[in-house]
């Protein structure tokens, strides 16, 4: 569509031209402050149950599971773990009680097996089901022992399954899944259940469409609080109603529930400043962890298949100085039973409430309508700058005498694109080639060095000022479009990318000024602060600080090892974070970096 209007640079108020940089910086910092402000009680909303059908399950309890029963099950499981035939033990326990149980071989050299049982509901023809997942082994954060048997979680899952077997009110089947190798086993089981991979061996039994579920990770026999983990793949989150149900149940049974091990005491005992600090920590950890695209438990795999699920992790941390005894068995079973009966009562899939939100504590959240504003403020300078550049093209084209006439259509402004596209192509090719190298932190440093010296080795970008502006214009539009799309898919990642890219844009734009000091300063900044690896290290340090909640020294070894494990595990999760970074963000950064080496030519050579 040709534009009839001529947007001219003289339309822009002169004062704006003068204070452009201030305005952009102002937008950027207001955006950052706005994001921090999300934790304030004025912005956040108190959560509520949107789906009424969930509430009856919260009321009364019907099941009683005795301590002896649990102890008996744990005893059997323990021998199973010891003799490495845990899947057989679980299957025989199911079969003994007349519940159908099946095994699935993972088809690898380890010979591990997934076990699952299906408690059939008498009221329905197996069209819908609820799933309870208890991974056989659970990752725990201790140096000596990275994984531990999920004894308590498996025992409770089994006990609840046995108790709900043949209950007349059950209208949905309950699948009890015990995956081996955590995420790997879960993924193989899900692939087989939905038959998404044509070569996977189909399962022996199915239970209709799985509505929602719960993952139980309780490696310790005693626990003092429950940590809720809800991060899914690529920043996906479960429905807020599901989380609220669990939080309600926890509150009812007075079990302290936390996110990221940060417990906010919502009673008036706590100081307001503590409340704010904890809320901010939760919010920031939320953003930082969701940006990675890696789930915080096996539930992430289920979210991918539209099965709403969160992980309950039994934490050993005491949340209150008066809390002396661990959580009772009865209270814990009440949570699972209440949850299952709420879901059993549900007529439809989870569709109400929110799918996009940030938790700032267990009772308050920020919805998408609110948290999109800070990102909008951060990205706005890119759009304004591109408009200003666009308008300035007309002014300059008025001065130039010649107008291109191609195919009978008058061009608005003439431009020789060849040098620009050569530059873009060069940068893309180089960055893609470098990203082809296997992801290792040491390799990444080599890549960075290659990128840094490439303008010296290869011919730097030479063009007139207008061509340079045009390149900037294209980069600004690409960048803002990328961030806009990303903000809808994975907000946290878009936010971090915006925080990184926007200063890059600014300093790349500044390099237009011819003074050599400015040029060297910009290059220096790109080498130091605006370097992706430095940003990564900064990100890692900040995340560690927030997780620990106390001052830590930066640890380079920790960074490299964390990065390597992340790269190793990330393929498993169907995540695309690294792909987006490698294919979009790094090339844009590289182009911006190379534009600081721009050499002005007064006349276009090709003309």
């Amino acid at each position: 569509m040709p534009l009839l209007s001529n947007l001219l640079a003289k339309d822009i108020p002169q004062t704006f031209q003068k204070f452009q940089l201030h305005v952009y910086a102002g937008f950027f910092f207001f955006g950052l402050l706005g994001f921090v402000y999300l934790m304030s009680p004025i912005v956040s909303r108190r959560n509520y149950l949107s789906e009424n059908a969930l509430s009856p399950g919260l009321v009364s309890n019907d099941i009683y599971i005795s301590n002896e029963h649990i102890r008996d099950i744990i005893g059997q499981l323990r021998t199973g773990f010891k003799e490495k035939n845990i899947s057989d033990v679980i299957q025989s326990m199911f079969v003994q009680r007349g519940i159908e149980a099946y095994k699935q071989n993972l088809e690898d050299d380890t010979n591990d097996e997934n076990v699952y049982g299906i408690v059939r509901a008498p009221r329905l023809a197996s069209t819908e089901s609820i799933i309870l997942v208890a991974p056989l082994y659970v990752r725990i954060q201790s140096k000596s022992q990275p994984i531990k048997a999920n004894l308590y979680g498996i025992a409770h899952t089994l006990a609840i399954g046995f108790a709900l077997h043949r209950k007349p009110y059950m209208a949905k089947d309950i699948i009890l899944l015990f995956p081996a190798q955590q995420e790997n086993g879960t993924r193989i089981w899900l692939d087989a259940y939905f038959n998404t991979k044509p070569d996977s061996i189909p399962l022996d039994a199915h239970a209709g469409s799985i509505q929602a579920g719960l993952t139980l990770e309780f490696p310790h026999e005693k626990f003092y609080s429950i940590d809720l983990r809800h991060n899914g793949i690529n920043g996906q989150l479960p429905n807020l109603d599901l989380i609220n149900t669990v939080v309600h149940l926890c509150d009812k049974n007075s079990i302290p529930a936390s996110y990221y091990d940060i417990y906010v005491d919502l009673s008036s005992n706590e100081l307001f400043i503590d409340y704010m600090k904890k809320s901010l920590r939760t919010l920031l950890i939320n953003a930082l962890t969701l940006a990675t695209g890696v789930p915080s438990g096996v539930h992430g795999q289920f979210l991918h298949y539209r099965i709403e699920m969160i992980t309950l992790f039994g934490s050993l941390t005491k949340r209150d100085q008066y809390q002396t005894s661990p959580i009772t068995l009865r209270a814990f079973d009440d949570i699972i039973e209440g949850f299952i009966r709420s879901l059993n009562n549900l007529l439809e899939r989870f569709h109400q409430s929110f799918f996009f939100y940030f938790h700032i504590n267990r009772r308050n959240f920020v919805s998408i309508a609110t948290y999109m504003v800070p990102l909008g403020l951060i990205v706005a300078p890119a759009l304004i700058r591109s408009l200003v550049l666009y308008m300035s093209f007309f002014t300059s084209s008025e001065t130039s005498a010649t107008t291109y006439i191609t195919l009978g259509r008058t061009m608005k402004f003439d431009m020789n694109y060849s040098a620009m596209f050569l530059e873009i192509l060069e940068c893309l090719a180089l960055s893609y080639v470098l990203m082809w190298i296997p992801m290792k932190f040491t390799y990444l440093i080599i890549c960075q060095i290659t990128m840094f010296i490439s303008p010296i080795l290869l011919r730097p970008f030479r063009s007139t000022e207008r061509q340079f502006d045009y390149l900037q214009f294209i980069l600004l539009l690409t960048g803002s479009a990328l961030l806009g799309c990303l903000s809808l898919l994975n907000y946290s990642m878009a936010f971090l990318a915006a925080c990184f890219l926007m200063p890059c844009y600014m300093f790349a734009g500044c390099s237009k000024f011819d003074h050599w000091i400015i040029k060297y300063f910009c290059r220096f900044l790109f080498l130091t602060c605006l370097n992706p690896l430095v940003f990564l290290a900064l990100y890692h340090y900040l995340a560690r600080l927030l997780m620990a909640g106390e001052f830590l020294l930066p640890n380079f070894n920790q960074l490299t090892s964390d990065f390597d494990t992340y790269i190793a595990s990330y393929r498993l999760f169907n995540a695309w974070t690294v792909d987006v970074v490698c294919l979009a963000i790094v090339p844009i950064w590289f182009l911006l970096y190379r534009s600081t080496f721009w050499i002005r030519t007064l006349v276009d050579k090709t003309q």
Partner: protein
Amino acid sequence: MSNFLRQVKITQPQLATFLQHQCRAEASTASSTGVTQSGSIVLDNRKAPPPLDADRMRMHPRIGNREIVGYGLKGKPEYFDLAMFPCPSIRWEADTAEITALRKKEQGDWKQLSVDEKKRLYRASFRQTFEEFCAPSGVWKWAIGWTLIGIAGLTFAYDGWRRICYRFDKPDSMADEKLKRQLEFHIAARQGPMTGLASKWDYETEMFSTKLKSCLILILLIHCCSTNEDVYKEELYIRPLASGHTYFNLLFTTVASPDILKSNIVHHYHLFPKVIADIVRSNGVSEFHVSLTQGLWRYDRWGMPIVGAPPGAEVWAWFKSDEQRDVASRWTSFAHELGGLLCASLNFVASNVSSSSPYYSFRPQSTLPKSNGANLDNSLLRYAALPREIVCTENLTPWKKLLPCVAGGSNHNGLAGLLDNAPKLYNSDYHSLRMDFRQICANTACTSTQLELSMALAIVVNTATSKPNYNEWTFRSVFGSNVAQSCPLSSLTNVYVDLQLSSTHSLNITPEPDYSIKQGTTPIVIYDLNSDQRKSTTFAMSCTHSKQPTSNTDSSSPPIVVHRYATGYGVRDGGIKTVIKINEEQNKNQITLLYFEQIPWYFRVFLHTLKITTLDDDTTEIKPDYISYTPGKDRERSYQLEIVIKTDQSIVISFEFEMAFLKWNEFPPDPNHGFYIPSAVISTLLPSKSNYILRSLNSFSLNQSLSSWSDGFVRLYSESLLVNLPTPDFSMPFNVICLGCTAVALAFGGLHNLTTKEFCFGPKRAQTPLRQRLQDLRVRLMASRRALAQRLFKRTPPQQQRHEHAE
């Protein structure tokens, strides 16, 4: 006394009674002593009347010279006859000379007075005696008479007014034709066959006759109609299952003469339910099947049912070819009527959208003479399934009412008495109501036919106890009651217990069975409840079975098991995989499988993705012998797929579909629940016929299928599937519409302006000083004020207006 009255304040009634007492007391003392008392109240009759003076005339102008003798009732001088107050204040007659003389005489000894004189004296004082004025007068006749006349007059007046004002027509039921039909209906329905209207009808001459002879004929006629052709059988089949459940199947079979389906005659129904016959006759149905099921039959754990059923509702019907109405309209009205009868939403199956006509899967069940059933093409068949239908007591109650021993109401005799406690029957893992209507051969040569209506209730009850591998049940624990009495109408009441578990389990059944037979290798014990010793007693049964620890599990897996599931995720496309597992140990030869699938139109099935492979190796494809595929049409027809496969090993049938995006008003109220795909139907002939109790094609009654070899025909139903279609967010449609419209308007407006208009700078407006602007404002304000005033006071006098004009 007057002093007393003055001093004491008493109420009026108290005063009246007081005065009465006083009056009597004074009269008694006066009569006894004859002493005149002075007082304000004069009660003394002996006192001479006061002279007729002017004062008296002025005060009491009406009484003439009649003597005032006392205070009277109210102190007024008036005469009355009152039984309550017998002493009026004045005398009746005026004082004549005669009376005065008599009075004087009265002062003396009363013996001097003659009777006439005494009477005269009495009459002078009183008009009537007590007897006279207390005598009934008969006024009530007059009063009632006139009231009735008044009511009648008003009614007539109202009727007349109504006729004038409204002019009602007679209801059409009062028309002669309708009256006649009503009469015919009464006669046909035998209203009061002995004493009522129908007893006056001569059925031979089709006229009313008052003769006694015709009544006798009528009785004979009724007797002839209820000949011994109608047969009703009740059976209960019990099979303890290895999975800790027990399968109960109550079977009720009615066989009737086909005459009840003939039109244009007066029908008589003995044991056959009239409603069913009406539905069948009016829609030209030759046979039908309907089942309402809750839960899923688990073939892998429970073996084979006698007759299978899919979850939800399933109906199919064969129609007669020689009727005037087309099959589609008959199917619609049949499904509506049947749905109304069973309280099920069968009206949803009626449209072509959800019904289909498979070629092979549902051939007629009727056993007709060869000549009749030769050319039945599938256009006469309609099949439909409603997987979402929920079955409850509201379906059981009308279904139960069709049974002969329940229809009467209170006396639920026989095995039907077990159905009384409905909640118990629904507290089961599988609950299936079924009704089949078909024609069967009346004799072995099949020269004539009979109608068979088979109704069955199958439940699978969880009988496991807390003790592992130990099952226990009684009639009372399963049904809530025992069999109180046998149904007098049933010709057969049997209870069969299938003991196929006895090889691995120890069974203990009380009471002792009457006899036992062996069906193939399966031992069956039988109780005959119609036998003499059980006929009048309550029949209670209890059973315990426990697994013997030595026996191995799964000794007999079923010969064929179906498992179906949906594949894929997301709302764009998906697929269905059906696994048909054939027990290869039992089966050495090839068997023929008939696979039928009916899929709603919003799942767009692609035939090219249909893949039939063996279960073990998904690369070896099996070529089906026959494929019939009817592509669906949006909102008109569902997809139908029918495949015939010959195989000797387990197979997998898979195909893929794409999901349609429905119009917003086509979504149900709960769109996020998902949409159902009905069960696939697999029909086959089992290779090893002997081991399973199945119904035979000759009869639904087990009594016959047990005695003859079962032909091994089974129909297996797979799971129904629940798939989520792409669904818009209905929870906030308003927000979505508002937001969408705003976004479109903003984007469109901007783009439109940018592309169609050219912006340019206009000349700058000359700046006016502030004072000038203020002055302008003042002038404008004054002008508007004047305009307002003119509008408000439009009716200003013309003079003023003129004045204004002049100004």
